[in-house]
Each structure stands twice: as C-alpha cells, then as structure tokens.
C-alpha cells in the first residue's frame, strides 16, 4: 500500500492505496464522489475527465499516486457557493445532455477548452476540441451550442470580475 495525499474540491484528503489504484477509482471508491464516470478505460471517451492543477486529465488512465500533492477538481466541485458554474447552466439551458453519463466529463472538458482557447469559440473549434469526449445520445448538436453559450458566459463573468 502507498500513501497518497491531494486536495480534492478544496478539501485535503489522503489514504493508503494499492499502488495500481487509478485516480478515477480513488475519487469514486475512496472519496465516494461518483460524478466522475468510467466509460471506456482507454482515454477515448472522456467520461472520466477531471481537472488536475487546473488542466483537464483523463482520470481512468492516471494512477492516483502520480497526482500526489496536486489539486484536483471534479464535477462535484465546479459549482461555487451553491451557484452553478456557467457551463453547467449552459448545458441545462441548451438541453446539452440526455442520459447524463458523459455529461460530467463533457462539462469538465468544456471548461478546460475555454480556459485554453478563450471565450470566443466558433463551432469548428468546439467540435475539434471535443475530440476526446464521446456522447451517444445527443448527436453533439446541443452540446456544441451549450459550450458556445457557456464559453460566452464565462467570458462575461471574467470581464465583470476585471
């Protein structure tokens, strides 16, 4: 067993884990944060995306021990002070989800896209950047709309703060 410590959604956590424990299983099984999902085990579908030190990471192919000391944000940590993140709002407003299974990873990736690419995203950029996230329900139409709207809202929020 190996000791692993990190900050998850602002809370310090540590545990003794089997060294082969994947980050997604640490989050789901040890912390019981089940919003992060396993869809494919091969880094393809993106249902497991979380943020590690501010960057999107596929937690199904990341060993928990490799993020020791890091700060991790999961879908449960995205809403702040009881208020939904603008990207969460945009997914609901645009009917950007159906079964909801890919949704947490989609939203975490979407926030990361805006963080990297800025708030003014065109459709082609969004579709290209979603390469690592698979949805079987929506045909992506409303996800693409949601990310465009969510990006604009994030941009507005940032501008207001500055």
């Amino acid at each position, binding site marked *: 067993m190996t000791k692993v410590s990190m900050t998850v959604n602002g809370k310090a956590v540590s545990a003794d884990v089997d060294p082969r424990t994947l980050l997604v299983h640490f989050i789901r099984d040890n912390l019981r944060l089940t919003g992060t999902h396993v869809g494919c085990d091969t880094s393809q579908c993106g249902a497991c995306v979380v943020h590690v030190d501010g960057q999107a990471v596929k937690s199904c192919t990341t060993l928990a021990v490799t993020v020791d000391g890091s700060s991790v944000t999961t*879908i449960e940590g995205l809403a702040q002070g009881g208020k939904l993140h603008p990207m969460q709002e945009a997914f609901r407003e645009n009917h950007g989800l159906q079964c909801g299974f890919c949704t947490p990873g989609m939203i975490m990736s979407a926030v990361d896209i805006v963080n990297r690419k800025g708030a003014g995203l065109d459709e082609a950029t969004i579709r290209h950047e979603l390469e690592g996230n698979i949805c079987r329900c929506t045909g992506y139409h409303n996800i693409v709309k949601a990310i465009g709207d969510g990006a604009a809202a994030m941009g507005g929020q940032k501008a207001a703060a500055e």
Partner: protein
Amino acid sequence: MTDQGIGAPVRRKEDFRFITGQGRYVDDINRPGQAHAYFLRSPHAHAKIKSIDLSAANAAPGVVAIFTGDDIAADKVGGLICGWAIFNKDGSPMRAGPHPALAQGKVRYVGDHVAVVIADTLAQARDAAELINVDYDVLPAVADMAAARKAGAVAVHDEAPNNQFYDWELGDKAGTDAAFAKAKHVTRLDIVNNRLIPNAMEPRAAVGEYDQGTDGLTLYTTSQNPHVARLVLSAFIGLAPEHKFRVIAPDVGGGFGSKIFIYAEETVCVWAARKVNRPVKWTADRTESFLSDAHGRDHVTHAELATDENGKITALRVSTKANMGAYLSTFASSVPTYLYAPLLSGQYNIPAIYAEVEAVYTNTAPVDAYRGAGRPEATFVVERLIEVAARELGKDPAEFRRANFVTQFPHQTPVIMAYDVGDYDASLTKAQQMHDVAGFAARKAASASKGKLRGLGYSAYIEACGIAPSAAVGSLGAGVGLWESAEVRVNPIGTVEILTGSHSHGQGHETTFAQLVSSRLGIPIDNVSIVHGDTDKVQMGMGTYGSRSGAVGMAAISKALDKIEAKAKKVASHVLEASEGDIEFKDGKFTVKGTDKAADFGSIALQAYIAHKFNGQELEPGLKESAFWDPTNFTFPAGVHICELEIDPATGVVTIERWTAVDDFGNVINPLIVEGQVHGGIAQGVGQALLEGAVYDADGQLITASYMDYTMPRAQDLPSYNVGMTITPCPSNPLGIKGCGEAGAIASPPAVINAITNALGHENITMPATPEKVWRAAQSSSHKQAAE
C-alpha cells in the same frame, strides 16, 4: 400554467443532478459487505470445454467463490430466453439451442461466459481469474453467415444442424411473382446492413443482493425494463418468485435497445449473491461491452422493385439473411421478422410485397434490437431501392417518391400494417423548402470548382412505434403483452406522484410526464414527481423501447388522470354543494356551472383525504388511481430527411454539409426534447453509414473491441441539424402521440448513402462508407467520367 404544459420547451427537471455529478447509476451503488464479480470469458469463438481447473484460483487472495456452468446446472438455474416464437415457412417452430448463463460443455463466441470469480475486490477477482486453467478443444468457427450456411459447416447448436435458425416468410409470393412477370422495369439491389455495437456510454452493470431474513433478492441493474427483467428472472430463470424479488433500474446511462435484454451477468450476480450471502457487484469494462452486449443489424439482402410503364411501383420482393449470433438474445427472433418485413411498404402504395428471411447462427455475439430494430434495415432496403429505381428510370428521386406515396388513410399494406394517418407530401415539401433543394445545383457547381463532388440524398421513412396491441403481437408470436401501466397518487396538499412502468434512460420522462400532469391538473411541474425503475414501487410495467413511452406510457398516465378527474369531481360536488354533473374542471379549478363557486385542485385533494364533507361509505376517501393502457394500433411516425454532402476525391473524406429533417411525430409534448431525440438518432444513423462496423476475423475474434478500433461518431464527424416538423395527430391514443426516439436512426443511413451515390454517379458503395471505400469508389467515378 401553459408555459409548463404540453407543447412547451421546458428545461429538464432531471438535469440538475446530472450536471452536478449527482446522478445515481448502478456502478455508483455500493452495498455493505459487497464482493466483486469478474467473468472469465472464452478467448475462442467455438470450443469444447474439456476441463476447468480452479485449484490455484480458489487459493488466491480474497477469493470468495468461483462458479462455472456446472454450478448453474446443479442449482437448476434456467437458461436465458428468447421471448418471441417464430415459425418456419413449413409451420415448424424455430430451431433454438440452449443459452445457459455460464457455458456448459461448450463456448460459442469470443466473450462467452466460462466462469465467474467473486472476490473481496475487483483486482483480486481479476487476478484469480488469470489462475483458472481451462482446457479447450478448439473447434472450427463460423464467423459470418456465408461460412455458417456453407455445406458441411460446423453447427453452432446441434438443434440447428445447418445453422439455420428459421426460414420465415411474409406476404403473397405468387401474387408478387406475377406482378414482377408483368413489370415494365425491375430494379435489383444487393444490400449489406452492417453490424453495429450499441455502445451506450454507461457500460452494463449489476449488483445482486440477498436478504436472508426475508429470503428476498434485490437486483440493481442497467435495464430499460426492470419489470420485464424481474418477470424473466423469476418465471423463466427461476431465481425467486416475483413477490420476493425486487429489481431496481436507477439512473441508466443510455440504452438504445441494448439494455432491454436479460443477460448472463445480472442473472449470475443475483444468483451468486444468495450462494455467497453477500452482495455481488459487476460492472462491464468497455471491451466486455463490445464483446457481450447484444449487437445490432447485420443483414444481407437481395431486393427487387417492379414498376409499370407509368412509373408506378407494382411489387417489392425481398430476400434477407439475418445474423443471430451464437445465442438467441431476449427479442432476437422478432427483429428481422415482425419488426422488419411489415415496414417494407415504406410510405408507398405497393400492391404486392413478399419477403423471406433466413436467420442464421454464427460464432459471434448475440444480435438483437438496436435503436430502430428492424425498421432501419427495412427503411434502408426501401429507400435505396426507390432511389436507384428513380435514377434508372431517369426520374427525379423526390418526384418519383411523391408519385408513389400513400395519400389515402387508413391504408392497409400487403404486409400486416394499417397506416392510420399521415401526410407524406407535406413533409417532403417542407423538407425541400427548408433544405433549399432548389439551390443544390449552384452549390454542386461551387463544389466542383474546388475539385469536390457534391451529392444530395433523400430518405422518406416510416416506422411502427407504440408497440403494441397485446392481442396483435400475441397472434404474431410475442410471449408478453405490450401495454403500459401507471398510477397517479395525489397527496393531501395537492402535489402528485406518477408511478410509471416506462423507464427513462435519457428520454427526459421526469419532465415530459410532469408536463402532461401540469396540463391536466393545472399544477406546476415542480409539484409533480415521476417514480420509475423500481418493481417495489411501481406495480407493473413493460418498459421503454420502440419509442413507446409517449404513445403507450403517457397514454396510461392520461387514462389514470381521467379517473383522478372523475373522482375529484365527486369530491368537489360535495365541497361546493352542487350536483356532480354541474362540476367543471379547467386550468386547475373546479367550478359549478352557472355560478361563481370555485375550488382549486389542491383544496379538493385535501378534502378528499380529510373526508369531512362526504359520507366515507358512499364515496371512498383519498385520491389515487391506476390504469393499464393497451394500444389499439401501432403508431406510424414518418418523415423526410435530406442529406447533402461533399466528397474530397483525393482523400475519400465525406463531409456532411447540410442535414434537414422533417418528421411527423403527431402531437409533441416538449419540442426541445423531441429535437434532441432526432439529433441523437441522426448521429447514430450517420455513424452506421460512415463510421461504424463490427468486424470479426475468420476465426471469430472481434477486431473492433475498443474505441481505438470501433469508430464512434465524434463531434467533428457530424454537422448541425436543421429539424422541422409536420403534425398529423395519432388517432389511436388520447394524446395524439406517435413516438420520436428512433426516427433519426431509421431515416438517416439511406439518406447518406443516397447522397454519396448521387455524388459519385454510381451505386457501388457499402456501409460504413469509410474514406478508403469512398476514395476507391471516387477513383472509378473519375475514370468513368474521364472515359465519357
């Protein structure tokens, strides 16, 4: 309240939990003391099991128990069933082989279940499984239908010596042959409907639990129909009687048909939970999903269309081979028969139709219903044939369709179905306008100037949903009735719980069903909760598939609401001191005709429970009603999709430039949700047409068993969709609904292939039309064009 009622694009009530990571799927459920199951699967497509040595595995750390087919047999656990009886042309029954939950003596496909290891942790179960020593006698495998039907081929099941599971027919053979003999023109087409793997994003999962104190079993499972699962596991597989068996399907992450069926894994988990007296949990990894979820489609068809001198269709003749895989999944037998051939008339007036279908066992995963189930296969045959016939006859494909549309309703086809209502001309015209078909020639010229080939393809589909009148499907061989049940519980403060046998796994029932209640009772949707997916809560149900939750599930709720209204009027007559016949109910208010006396719904609900204003012997206290709805007919959603695409002849890459869908789903409860269903359906159909295909090698190894090998449609592969509607309300249910869940997947593949063949100028392309295939086809097109 109209802003939340029927027809309003209400944002979904269920979304909050999903966007905040608080959905509760089966894999999120952990029970105290639970152990983990891992299935040892066959690495061979076909082999005899000579022996299984468990000694090393049993001694491995954390192992609780290991079970094989012998243990299943010793406990007399019944085999998995196929619930629809099909009869051969000669009247004899289909030739079904056994389907044990764990293999007994023989494995028949790669992924077949050989043993289950139950251990304290999943890692320990996996590690122990590696220590199991199975001695196989490997047999030759038949990996596709051609190999399976070859003379002398090895039999997958002794019951079907030449691998023919059934040989079935529908329609008037002599009449159809006679029409062909008189035809002015005959169009012939060989068609492969490629095999697909459903790939709901949530892998299948199960947690079985046994309560020794009550001798009760509980199964948490990724199911579209928990009551059907309980019925099968109780009555046929024999694990426990229904009153001691609870099946819960909580949030389910997509189904598309693949979660209708009762599989080996959940059967074994719940059986083993009693054996080891601990909860037993299993979750598929993605490769297990590829290997063992029921696959879809996989037809090989020869089809012929006869036309007369006026360009009128006179007959259709179809011969199809359908792959069943190695075992019969729950509804496998019905998909290429009664869900397929009765749709072969399409939107067209075809006087004579004959279809024959041969179902074939192969050493591959079982094949069953996948989004559309038989109807996409039928639509692909009809819409490709119509398109090619129009081209051969030198007619505009849209006008050729229009000239042959059914225009009088009701319309009895030669293949069972009685179309009740529709306006096919209206949806074609609207689609052409929305798409700007008139501007296609200019767009094609612009593409040509860039060295690109541009094509436009139509698909005018019809499907049969709302399955189905129980007596009708019973006469066709179904083992179950296909009604739906609902219960409406009004609480004393006027809030409402709807218990439904439908199951939502992405469809948004918590919103749309609440919209119906809001419209009927005049209360906000937040005052309505929808309860589903638990056999201990909901009395009975048939579940969600075949686009039936609106047309059948909501019809049952509507019927129960009728009873609520009638009972509430009785209560109101006492409260308002008027005769029952004078009570009117509208917009959530009870009034007395011709007076200003009024009471709102909530106050009448309270009075129903207080029971002070009436004699409890003459009128029962309380406000709770239930209903079963058995449909009187199938429903017939129909529409027109137009695909316009551009091909780069240098690379073979196909880019969809414009997609227009005009669908007639009857009345619409929530346009936002309906459009979302259309989008998702189109994406799956485009996936079939351009990207997806299950590939087995000649030895029966699945080559496409991960997302690195099986091409799922991603955001970049797909366009935005232009979705419109026409409405002819369905006359056979109280809400006028037809169903919208499968239409996109049914309509879209022929639209894509018709567009590609239109661009290429020849018909030589098969699905999936990958860049390599399209590049090769484009080369022969350009040679052809150069030679001309």
